[in-house]
C-alpha cells in the first residue's frame, strides 16, 4: 500500500526548514571533516594489513587466526560503509582528493563502482521506496509490502533473506544485472527484443575476478609459498569468514534503514514532478534510523542516520549526528513521523516485516499495514 502525499503548500515550510539545516551544516564542512575521514582511512588500512598479517600467525595458535579474521572483517566493513559508500556519494568530494573522489573510488567488494552509482546513488536515492522504480525495496527477491503480489514462493522468503545476508556482496554486485535479466525475461514473454547487457556482464565478471583472485588465490598462495600448503586453506577460509562477517553486518544495517515495520512505500505517480519538499517528505517516510554509541554510528557508515543520509546524501557523514537532532525537531514541528529506535528493536521489526509479508494475505480483508 502506498502513502498519500500532503499538499505542496504544507510542505513548503518544511522544505525551508530542512534547507536551512543543510546550509548551516555545509557551511561548517572543512578541515574537521577531512581530518576525520583521513583518520578513518588510516585505521582501516591498519586493520586491513594487520588482520591479514595476524591471521598468518594462526600457524602458532588458532586464537591469532580468529583475531586476524575479526580485524579483516572490521576493515572490510569500514572500507565498504564509512569510507566506500560515503565517498561514492560525493560526501568528501569537497576535499579534491583524487583518492577520496566519488567517481574514482572503488571499494573492497564484488560490486563495481559504476554499477553501484547507477543502482544505488541514482535509482535507490532518487526513487526511494517507490514501488516499481526503487528495486532496492526488496531487491526483486523479497516481498516487503502488499504492492507485490503474493506467490507461494514467498512462503520461504525467510530462507531467501538468510541466504542474501550471507552472500550480501554478491547480491549487491548482481543486482543491476539481475534487473536486466528479469526485464529480458519479461520481454521474451511479450515477444520483445532483449536489451543488451553484455557490458554489464563484463563489468560484473571483471570485478568479481579481482576480488576472488585477491582473497582466494593471491593471499592464500603467497602465504602458502612461505609456510606450506596447509596454510593456503587457513588463509582461504579466514578471508571467506571475514567476507561473511562483512556481508552479515552490511546487510543487517541496510535492512534496518528501509525495511523496518513502519517504513512507507509510494506509487510511481506520486513522485512525478514533485517539489523538493515532497521529495524530502518521501525520503523521511521511506527511511528509518537507529540509536547507539558513536562507534556503532561509525561502523554502520552512519547509516544509523539513514533519514538524514536520504535527505542530504552528499553531506559528509561526519555531520549526520549533529543534523539528526535538528531534523528530528523539524519533523516534530511539522508533524512528520520520524522513525527511529534501538538497533535491536529496528532489527526485529525488519524480521517481523519479512515474516509478515511471506504469509498469504487474507483475501480482501487484509488491512494495508505499510501505510
Amino acid at each position, binding site marked *: 500500500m502506498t502513502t498519500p502525499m500532503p499538499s505542496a503548500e504544507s510542505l513548503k515550510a518544511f522544505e525551508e526548514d530542512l534547507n536551512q539545516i*543543510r*546550509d548551516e551544516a*555545509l557551511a561548517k*564542512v*572543512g*578541515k*574537521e*571533516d*577531512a*581530518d576525520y575521514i*583521513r583518520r578513518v*582511512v*588510516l585505521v582501516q*588500512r591498519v586493520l586491513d594489513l594487520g588482520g591479514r598479517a595476524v591471521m598468518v600467525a594462526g600457524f602458532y595458535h588458532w586464537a591469532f587466526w580468529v583475531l586476524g579474521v575479526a580485524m579483516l572483517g572490521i576493515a572490510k566493513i569500514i*572500507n565498504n560503509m564509512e569510507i566506500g559508500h560515503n565517498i*561514492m*556519494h*560525493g560526501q568528501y*568530494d*569537497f*576535499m*579534491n*582528493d*583524487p*583518492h577520496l*573522489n*566519488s*567517481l574514482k573510488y*572503488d*571499494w*573492497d567488494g564484488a560490486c563495481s563502482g559504476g554499477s553501484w*552509482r*547507477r543502482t544505488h*546513488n*541514482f*535509482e535507490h*536515492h*532518487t526513487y526511494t521506496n517507490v514501488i516499481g522504480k526503487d528495486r532496492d525495496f526488496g531487491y526483486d527477491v523479497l516481498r516487503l509490502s502488499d504492492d507485490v503480489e503474493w506467490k507461494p514462493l514467498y512462503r520461504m522468503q525467510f530462507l531467501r533473506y538468510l541466504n542474501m545476508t550471507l552472500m550480501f556482496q554478491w547480491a549487491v554486485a548482481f543486482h543491476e544485472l539481475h534487473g536486466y535479466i528479469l526485464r529480458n525475461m519479461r520481454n521474451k514473454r511479450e515477444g520483445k527484443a532483449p536489451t543488451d547487457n553484455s557490458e554489464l556482464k563484463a563489468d560484473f565478471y571483471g570485478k568479481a*575476478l*579481482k*576480488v576472488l*583472485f*585477491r582473497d582466494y588465490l*593471491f593471499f592464500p598462495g603467497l602465504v602458502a609459498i612461505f609456510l606450506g600448503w596447509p596454510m593456503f586453506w587457513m588463509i582461504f577460509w579466514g578471508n571467506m569468514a571475514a567476507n561473511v562477517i562483512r556481508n552479515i553486518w552490511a546487510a543487517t544495517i541496510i535492512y534496518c534503514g528501509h525495511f523496518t515495520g513502519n517504513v512507507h512505500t509510494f506509487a510511481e505517480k506520486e513522485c512525478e514532478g514533485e517539489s523538493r519538499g515532497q*521529495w524530502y517528505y518521501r525520503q523521511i517516510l521511506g527511511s528509518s534510523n537507529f540509536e547507539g554509541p558513536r562507534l556503532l554510528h561509525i561502523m554502520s557508515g552512519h547509516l544509523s542516520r539513514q533519514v538524514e543520509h536520504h535527505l542530504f*546524501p*552528499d553531506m559528509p557523514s561526519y555531520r549526520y549526528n549533529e543534523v539528526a537532532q535538528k531534523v528530528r525537531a523539524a519533523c516534530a514541528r511539522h508533524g512528520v513521523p520520524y522513525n527511529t529506535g534501538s538497533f535491536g528493536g529496528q532489527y526485529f521489526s525488519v524480521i517481523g516485516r519479512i515474516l509478515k509479508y511471506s504469509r498469504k494475505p487474507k483475501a480482501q480483508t487484509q488491512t494495508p499495514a505499510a501505510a
Partner: protein
Amino acid sequence: MNGQIAQPETTLSRFHTWLAQSLVNNNEFFAYFEPFIRLAMPAWSTVGVRSRVMKVHSETGDVYSLVIRPGRRWKNFSAGQHVQISAELNGTLYTRTFSISTSPDYFRKTGLIELSIRSKPDGRVTPMLKEHFAKGGVCTLSDAGGDFLLPEGNEPLLLIAGGSGITPFRSMMNQLSSNSLRDVHLLFYIRNSSNALFRQELDRIAELHPNLKVTFINTEAEGQVCEEHLLRYCPDVADRIAMVCGPTPMIQGTRNLLSELGLPADQIRFEYFGAAPIEMEMTGEKSFVRFKTSGIATTTTPDEQMSLLDLAEKQGLTPQHGCRIGVCYQCVCTKESGVVFNTRTGQYSDTGKEDIQLCISVAASDLELNI
C-alpha cells in the same frame, strides 16, 4: 594531474593496474600506502612533487611571491613555463597554475623558484594562499609545462607584457642576463609608474646589459598598446619575434596590431596570463562555454538558466548522468576553469579546476569543461 605525459599502455602496465585494482582497489599501489607515508611526511601525495614554501614576500601593490624549494623529484624547467601548485586550505586541496617568475639559472644555483601572484581582493584562493604560507609550509608542485618559451636561435625579440603578465618575462630576462647577447626589447604596460612590478630589478638588468632594453609604458598617461607605441619604441618591430603576455583583451588587440604591422603568424607568440585556468571575471552577461574534450563551444546567458547538462546535450553531447537533480553524482565532470552557480545550494563555485555536478550547475562566467 595534467602536465604529465600519459604512459603508453603495455601488457605489463595493464597487468600492473589490474593487480593494483585487485589487491588495493586502486590503479596504483602507492595510493593505498599514502596514509602511512603521510604519517612521516604530511601532505605527501601520489600526484605531483612534495615541495616546501620557504617564505612569502610582498612585491609591489597586491602582488606577492611564494619562494619555493621544489622537492628532489621535480624536474627542471625553461624560462616562461608555468607550474601547478596545490595546497590544502581548510580541508580542501586547491590547485592553481602560475608562471615561474625566476630563471632556471637561479634555480640551478639556489634550488629555489618563485611564483609571483596577484592577490585578488574578491578571489577565494589567492589571498588564502598568501596567508596560509606566511610562515612557510608544504605544497605540491606539478612538473613545469607550457610552450611559451624563448625561441631557439638568435633572432631579436620584442616582449610585450601587461600587468602581472610580466612574470614569465621576468624569468626570461633574468635568464638572458646571465648568458646571452641576444637583442631583446621589453615593453611593459603598467597602470602606475611608481609601483610597477619588479621595476628595480628590470632597470638594473637593462643597465648592466646593453642588449636588453626595457621600456615602461604608463597606460593611464599613454593608453593601451597601439601602433604608434610599437613604432615609436621599437621601430624594427617587424624584424623581431614578438611575445605577448597579459590580460585576454590586450593579447587579442596586440596580436591584431602585430599582424597588421606585417608580422607573420609564426613570429607572434602569446600566453594568456596565468596560463590556462585564468581567474575569470563573472560577466553577468553572455558566458562562453567550451567543451574541451569534444572541441565544441557555445554561449549561454544567465537568464536562460540552463543546466550545463542540458547545455551539453543541446550541443549533441551525451555526458553520463542519472537523476538530473543532484543526487546520484553520475554527472560529475571536471571543470578546468570558470565559475558555476550551484542551483541546489545557491552558491558560486571556485574559479579553478575542480569537479562539478553538471545537472545542477549553471554557467556564471566563461567556462572550460572536460567533456
